């Protein structure tokens, strides 16, 4: 009797709820039920107490959940599903009394327009998802749970948390990666280098580990970092130092603005090198990397610092600060092993800090001690950076649009590769793409000429892909289009019949 009542109710509800199923209301498999629930029910987070969830046998739920898990898009909803379904089973197990109550509740739910509403007993949270699940599983669950109680398995409820935590981690890492850069750089100068930063290091774990420490190191060590940066960089460019001192102090602002970009590139190179190089090598590899990447820029920034130094030395008050800085820098320098990894961050953050006009008081005292320190050492490469930068405005505009277009495919490459990549490898990919485009255009020209045309048509493209082996008798072009292109493009490419005896795109 219970079974009949339940089945009747479930069926009636099923008719209401499962509007999406075409016919076949008799066989409500878990698969179809779940599918309909997911389609109809709003998303809601379901937090079920473990005690209710565990002891209930759920062989069927496990099966259905497994089936559902095969569908990628519904994956995230699974952990929410499983507790409610087990809860439903738990509720179905007890006797008549509770069924009557559920019936009344169900009728209320019917009035309210909810397809299934069943207040779970002893549970405060009755989301529509839960209630919908409770009822839909009424019929099929009972026979199975009666037959095989021993096959009960604990549903992996942990999954919801994992996904949430994982997403949270993603946000954190993206935030942590984005925010230090944002906080450090001026908005104008950051735009090109932000993309560069994300481009070159999509997967570097060291960078992720480092980014929080950037935060911490930044506020306390800002002044020392500037000097560290200069000192580190100074080893590289020795010869240009004295030359730079002749720069008139008239263009510090330009240099600073230009420096911001350089330092950002520098910051980019730092994570690159730091990830590639083990930490215990100290500042040296960083310097090497820096020197390789942006030697000129070092010089420019050095000239700036020199310029500012000359202006700053006139302020005697700052000498005190500079002394303090010098001590701190020396102390920081003494901490070589930890400074190697910290130095990378410090350098990155410090150079950017140094460049920004935000902290002029640090800027000025920083150069004088650095000048004093560096006078013994070869040079401040930073100041030498800027003049070469100003010299080359010409060739850039021609290269940039081409490169930005290619960068789209380069990003796709790094995405498909799923592995961290070196910057040289990415440049290699760009070269390959260039060659590929040349080959492509040549082939298309040949095919069009063969057909006696001067316009390249999609048939030529299809022939090309056939010759490449991408399209064959098993796999047609339309299949490839469907697989790899988004819907909008698919509509444009594959002719589809519409109402009114029309086909779009017209053939």
């Amino acid at each position, binding site marked *: 009797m219970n079974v009949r009542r339940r089945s009747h109710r479930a069926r009636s509800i099923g008719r209401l709820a499962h509007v999406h199923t075409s016919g076949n209301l008799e066989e409500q498999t878990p698969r179809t039920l779940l599918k309909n629930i997911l389609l109809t029910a709003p998303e809601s987070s379901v937090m079920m107490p473990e005690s209710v969830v565990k002891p209930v046998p759920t062989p069927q739920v496990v099966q259905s959940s497994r089936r559902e898990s095969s569908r*990628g898009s519904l994956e995230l909803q699974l952990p929410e599903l499983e507790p409610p379904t087990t809860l439903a089973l738990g509720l179905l197990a007890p006797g008549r009394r509770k069924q009557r109550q559920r019936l009344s509740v169900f009728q209320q739910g019917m009035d309210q327009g909810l397809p299934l509403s069943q207040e779970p007993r002893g549970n405060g949270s009755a989301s529509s998802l839960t209630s919908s699940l409770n009822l839909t599983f009424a019929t099929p669950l009972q026979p199975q749970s009666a037959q095989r109680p021993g096959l009960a398995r604990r549903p992996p409820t942990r999954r919801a948390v994992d996904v949430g935590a994982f997403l949270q981690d*993603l946000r954190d890492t*993206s935030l942590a990666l984005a925010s230090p850069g944002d906080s450090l750089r001026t908005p104008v100068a950051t735009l090109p280098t932000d993309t560069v930063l*994300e481009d070159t290091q*999509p*997967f570097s774990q060291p960078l992720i580990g480092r980014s929080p420490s950037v935060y911490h190191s930044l506020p306390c060590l800002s002044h020392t970092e500037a000097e560290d940066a200069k000192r580190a960089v100074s080893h590289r460019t020795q010869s240009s130092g004295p030359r730079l001192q002749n720069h008139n102090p008239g263009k510090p602002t330009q240099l600073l603005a230009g420096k911001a970009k350089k330092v950002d590139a520098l910051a980019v190179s730092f994570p690159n090198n730091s990830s590639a190089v083990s930490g215990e090598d100290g500042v040296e590899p960083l310097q090497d990397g820096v020197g390789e990447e942006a030697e000129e820029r070092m010089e420019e920034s050095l000239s700036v610092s020199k310029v500012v130094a000359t202006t700053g030395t006139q302020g005697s008050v700052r000498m005190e600060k500079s002394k303090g800085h010098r001590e701190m820098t020396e102390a920081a320098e003494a901490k070589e092993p930890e400074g190697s990894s910290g130095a990378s961050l410090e350098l990155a953050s410090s150079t950017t800090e140094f460049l920004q006009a935000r902290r002029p008081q640090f800027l000025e005292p920083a150069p004088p001690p650095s000048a004093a320190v560096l006078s013994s050492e070869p040079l401040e490469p930073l100041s030498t950076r800027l003049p070469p930068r100003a010299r080359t405005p010409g060739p850039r505009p021609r290269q940039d*649009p*081409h490169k930005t*277009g*290619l960068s*789209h*495919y380069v990003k*796709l*490459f*790094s*995405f*498909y*590769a799923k*592995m*961290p*990549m*070196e910057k040289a*490898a990415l*440049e*290699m*990919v760009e070269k*390959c*793409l260039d*060659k*590929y*485009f*040349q080959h*492509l*255009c040549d*082939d*298309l*020209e040949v095919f069009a000429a063969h057909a006696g045309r*001067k*316009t*390249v*048509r*999609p048939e030529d*493209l299809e022939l*090309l*892909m056939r*010759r*490449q082996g*991408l399209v064959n008798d098993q796999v047609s*072009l339309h299949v*490839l*289009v*469907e*697989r*790899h*292109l*988004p*819907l909008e*493009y698919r509509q*444009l*490419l594959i002719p589809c019949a519409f109402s009114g005896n029309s086909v779009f795109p017209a053939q």
Partner: protein
Amino acid sequence: MAFSTTVSQRKHIKRKAPRGFLKRVFKRQKPHLRLETSGDLLVHLNCLLFVRRLAEESRMNAFESKCGVIKKEHVQAAAKVILKKSRG
């Protein structure tokens, strides 16, 4: 979208085709030829498949050399193979 992977990384790959860029490249290479509008998209599809094959080949190369990072040599070796394949 169809079949393609869910981007679970922080970098969201845009699915748009750089149609202007492709048209420009074609024009620059072959100014005497014309490219149709839907041909543009098929070129993009071709590029996608090429990049995918290249990436997988370089990934395999990196695995074979037991490297956790894709290096220039891997990409170079992969490019030789894949460019030869996609010559048509």
